[in-house]
């Protein structure tokens, strides 16, 4: 009973902090909305493909027109035709992220391509960015198809000429152009196509841009919210009320248990609200497997609680609570896949990230919301979270000071 | 303006909206003396010295400190005074030496003169061996001493101390009172506010009693006590509601004044030896039992009680 009283007292203190609602709920929701909208990719545009500038200095030759047509058929990029005035600032637009890349077709490109010479266009791109890499890859594919088409035209003309000479150079030219155009058109329905789909898309589900941001921000703010709980503990110690508690018939174990229960309740309620908001406002599928979601939420709250207890145990001042909490939050969130999926990082980073409990929490959530898996898929993540909980809790109890 | 006066207060008043915190007060502090402003919390003492320290502007009236008007020459006033605020005002993350060095600069001390003065003050306040320690790690008493030391850096002619002994242990209090005496013996004028009668009595050459924004009496201790003349104070507790006996006692001959505060009855009487039996007798008649009796020689508390009808300590 005393444990409950103590937990309730902590809850009251946290709830009375005016910043509690801000840090625990408003900020994670705001961040989820922000990152979901921004990183969602489409940004409200009708065509979600990456924009790639197209500058035609070859006076609209069949080759440059063919290249443009091939680019339009891409499923990852869309060409944006730039006139000469816009072309002058094309590089800056790539630098500023407004265009993923710019293709500049030089004068004489078509002629060289058709003659089988070294026809080269210019690609302005920053391959350090993932958008740049994607654009470069797609443009490369289109250029190879175009140069291949020029070769086809050449081969066809040779085959024809071997049987029937061309009436005139103009006639040959027309033949080549026809071959090129026909080849380019054929690529719109190639004999062998590639289709890539996620298992989610297979189930006719549209990708949800909040599916990363919602669980990511929940994980991050489950840790950020510890500032409140940790501060309560430090204030109790500083004001002497913690020592005073021990003059009442309550054991040290009960004191620790009370604080633990109080913090756990705060984090659990926070997560529950964020799950509901995520499901109802952002359409993230937490509740299609409610048991599985619960099996991630509870261990995450437990881990967060044990971390908060540890921070409260080692901190002497409120400022230290904030400092340790922020450091823990930055590292656990950034390296645990809360900000960006670990699969887009390097091998080493991804491996190290998975040493952290937050990465496992993210895995658990993604199994539910992205992969649609059930309770069985979250048992391992839950187990890892609980193991870390035991570790942090043990350290906290060992380091806990009452004065 | 008398040359021997370090501070002259003339019709000084301060209003905060509808509240008249200080109402046209008037007193002088002679150079080289210890002058106490005595009064309960809320009497206007802190407001008065805030004005004398040039922290607050008066609503009306003026005062001069070492010949400088607080209204027209606040900077000159600040050069002449050292202020010890009631709450410790120190930088907790700086050391004692760093605190003194910084405040010394604020008082215009520089270079070798500053360094020497800091060392001297550290000796005076007994913190020379803890000068490198961070103030956040100091005990309450040590902080109070440093708090006083800062006010001494620039060798002010007047030192203003606002209730410096509130909430501290008896030993530290004793130290502070001894320090005040020592400073005064070196020639410093001290303006000291307190609500402890014993301090005012022990330290002061002159005392002004304040209540509800007014100076209700001032003079030496003896002069003030004379206000109540030969009146003794008798404090009594009874086993019934005071209302049962207050009127009969008030009506008794020889009783000058009766007041009731928190169940305790205080009487000012001409002769306590003569009056006591009568008081017991009338209590008997009223069916009331006296449970405790205390007799006080006339003192400042008696004076305050006489003048205001209330106890000095609330």
């Amino acid at each position, binding site marked *: 009973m005393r444990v409950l009283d103590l937990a309730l007292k902590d809850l009251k203190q946290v709830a009375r902090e005016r910043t509690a609602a*801000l840090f625990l709920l408003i900020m994670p929701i705001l961040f989820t909305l922000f990152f979901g909208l921004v990183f969602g990719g489409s940004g409200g545009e009708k065509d979600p493909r*990456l924009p790639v500038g197209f500058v035609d200095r070859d006076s609209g030759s069949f080759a440059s027109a063919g290249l443009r047509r091939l680019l339009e058929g891409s499923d990852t990029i869309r060409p944006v035709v730039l006139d000469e005035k816009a072309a002058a600032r094309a*590089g800056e637009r790539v630098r500023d992220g407004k265009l993923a890349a710019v293709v500049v077709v030089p004068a004489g490109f078509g002629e060289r391509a058709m003659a089988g010479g070294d026809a080269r266009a*210019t690609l302005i791109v920053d391959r*350090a*960015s993932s958008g740049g890499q994607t654009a470069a890859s797609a443009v490369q594919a289109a250029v190879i198809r175009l140069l291949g088409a020029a070769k086809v035209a050449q081969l066809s003309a040779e*085959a024809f000429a071997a049987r029937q000479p061309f009436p005139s150079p103009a006639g040959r030219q027309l033949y080549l152009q026809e071959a090129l155009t026909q080849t380019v058109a054929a690529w719109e329905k190639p004999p062998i196509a*590639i*289709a890539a789909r996620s298992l989610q898309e297979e189930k006719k589900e549209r990708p949800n841009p909040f599916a990363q941001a919602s669980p990511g921000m929940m994980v991050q703010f489950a840790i950020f919210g510890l500032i409140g709980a940790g501060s309560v503990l430090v204030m109790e110690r500083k004001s002497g009320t913690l020592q005073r508690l021990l003059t009442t018939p309550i054991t040290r174990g009960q004191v620790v248990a009370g604080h633990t229960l109080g913090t756990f309740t705060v984090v659990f309620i926070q997560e529950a609200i964020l799950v509901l908001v995520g499901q109802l406002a952002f359409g993230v599928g937490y509740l299609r497997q409610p048991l599985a979601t619960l099996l991630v939420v509870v261990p995450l709250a437990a881990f967060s609680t044990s971390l908060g207890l540890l921070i409260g145990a080692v901190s002497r001042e409120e400022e230290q609570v904030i400092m340790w909490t922020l450091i823990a939050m930055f590292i656990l969130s950034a390296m645990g896949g809360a900000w960006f999926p670990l699969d887009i990082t390097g091998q080493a980073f991804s491996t190290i990230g998975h040493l952290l409990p937050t990465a496992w929490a993210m895995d658990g959530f993604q199994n539910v919301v992205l992969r649609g898996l059930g309770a069985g898929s979250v048992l391992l993540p839950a187990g890892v979270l609980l193991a870390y909980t035991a570790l942090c809790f043990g350290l906290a109890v060992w380091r806990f000071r009452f004065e | 303006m008398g040359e021997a006066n370090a501070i002259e207060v003339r019709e000084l008043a301060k209003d905060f909206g509808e509240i008249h915190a200080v109402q046209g007060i008037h007193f002088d502090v002679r150079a080289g003396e210890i002058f106490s402003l005595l009064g309960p919390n809320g009497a206007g003492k802190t407001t008065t010295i805030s004005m004398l320290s040039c922290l607050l502007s008066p609503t009306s009236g003026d005062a001069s400190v070492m010949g400088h008007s607080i209204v027209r020459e606040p900077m000159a006033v600040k050069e002449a005074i050292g202020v010890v605020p009631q709450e410790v005002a120190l930088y907790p993350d700086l050391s004692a030496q760093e605190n003194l060095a910084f405040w010394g600069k604020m008082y215009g001390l520089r270079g070798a003169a500053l360094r020497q003065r800091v060392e001297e003050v550290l000796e005076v306040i007994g913190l020379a061996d803890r000068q490198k320690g961070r103030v956040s790690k100091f005990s309450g008493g040590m902080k109070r001493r440093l708090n006083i030391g800062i006010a001494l850096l620039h060798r002010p002619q007047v030192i203003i101390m606002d209730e410096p002994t509130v909430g501290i242990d008896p030993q530290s209090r004793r130290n502070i009172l001894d320090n005040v005496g020592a400073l005064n013996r070196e020639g410093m004028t001290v303006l000291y506010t307190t609500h402890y009668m014993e301090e005012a009595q022990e330290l002061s050459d002159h005392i002004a009693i304040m209540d509800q924004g007014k100076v209700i009496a001032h003079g030496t201790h003896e002069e003030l006590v004379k206000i109540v003349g030969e009146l003794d104070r008798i404090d009594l507790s009874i086993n019934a509601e005071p209302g049962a006996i207050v009127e009969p006692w008030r009506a008794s001959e020889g009783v000058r004044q009766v007041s009731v505060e928190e169940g305790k009855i205080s009487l000012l009487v001409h002769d306590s030896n003569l009056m006591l039996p009568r008081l017991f007798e009338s209590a008997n008649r009223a069916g009331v039992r006296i449970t405790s009796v205390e007799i006080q020689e006339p003192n400042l508390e008696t004076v305050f009680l006489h003048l205001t009808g209330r106890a000095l300590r609330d």
Partner: protein
Amino acid sequence: MKLVDIALKDLVRSFRSAFALVMMFVAPLLLTGIIYFAFGGLGSAKEGFDLPVTRVQVVNLDRPAGSSGDFVAGRILIQFLRSPEMARLLQVAEVGSEAAARAAVERKEADVALILPEGLTAAVVAPTSPVTVTLYHDPALTIGPAILKGVVSQFVDGFAGSRIASNVVASQLGRRGVAVDAAVLEQVGRGYAARIQELGQQQGEGRLAGLDLQLPPGQKPSEERAAMMAGMMVSQIIFFAFYTGAATAETIIREQEEGTLARLSTTPTPAAVILGGKFAGIFITIIVQVIVLLLVSALLFGIHWGEPLSVALVTLGMVVAAAGFGLFVMSLVKNTRQSGAVFGGVLTVSGMMGGLFTTGVQNLPSFYTTVNLFTPHGWALRGWKAVLAGGGMGDALLPALVTLGLGIAFFTVGALLFRKRFS
């Protein structure tokens, strides 16, 4: 002189606080360092080699076609995917059925299931109905499936192109009444394959085939990673400079609560000097912070900040903006208990609106880039981007002037509010 004493005292107090040091220096460098570590693999000359290996389960339903002899396109593709140069990217296992492959992806035993359809070889050797090579991938993955798709696409394009070549030649000759025999088609096939191989070799030499690469203005080769880190570091510097501005401005309120501000007023120090010292302390602290961050990040992450004068110009604008904004925001706060909401809420939201959390993200919605310009953060970021792109004073001038102007405006209002408060 007293003004400087007060400012220096504040600087000393700032640098004595472990918390302040963490927020001024450790946090921005830590965050940038984490990103450096995370994305260090991308953007280097050997692209993609540091990425996690993608586990692929392949189902080869392909069969020899009538005229293909031993040639099975699916088998050749699998051999390619298992080749040594692909081993660093892909781990390929062959399974018997599509269902088994998909189930493996669902159980997270594989990242991608690659289904090579039955008529693949037939589609290569003869004009038949089109076929589709299908990839099913784990929905949580993006890079690995994209890489596999790119590799398979390019390989398959070779086959498809060969088929298209034959079809086009046959169609053209046929329309002109010229007979098309196997020899012609074989010649076409060889000629086309040779051209594709030639283009492939160009790629093998580390270039792009048919394309000359050009970096965006201001970027130098071999500095791509540093350019990415510079963007990240800049946003951290701006964010934490604004944080420091607010935190040092908060000390005015803290001194009021500590009683030392009132005590300062009892010394012969004019109020203007006291407040001026506090304000100067804010500037000096931020300047020291920014200089240290610029130098340390240049050393740690190889960032080349650009022309010193331009750097100085945008730094000045940013410092004034950060100091002014911090002072203004704190002038609205009554006590230090309320300031938590400022740090948590106002600074983060304004940083978000200023675009600090999305540097490096491409294809941002246009409304968002407009919103950036309503914040001093957005203009500071603009100035820095111009400088990092190799721009001179001219390019940095407008953003620097705007940040300076905004900073002065915020500062003036904040200073007036504080003066009023303490008068």
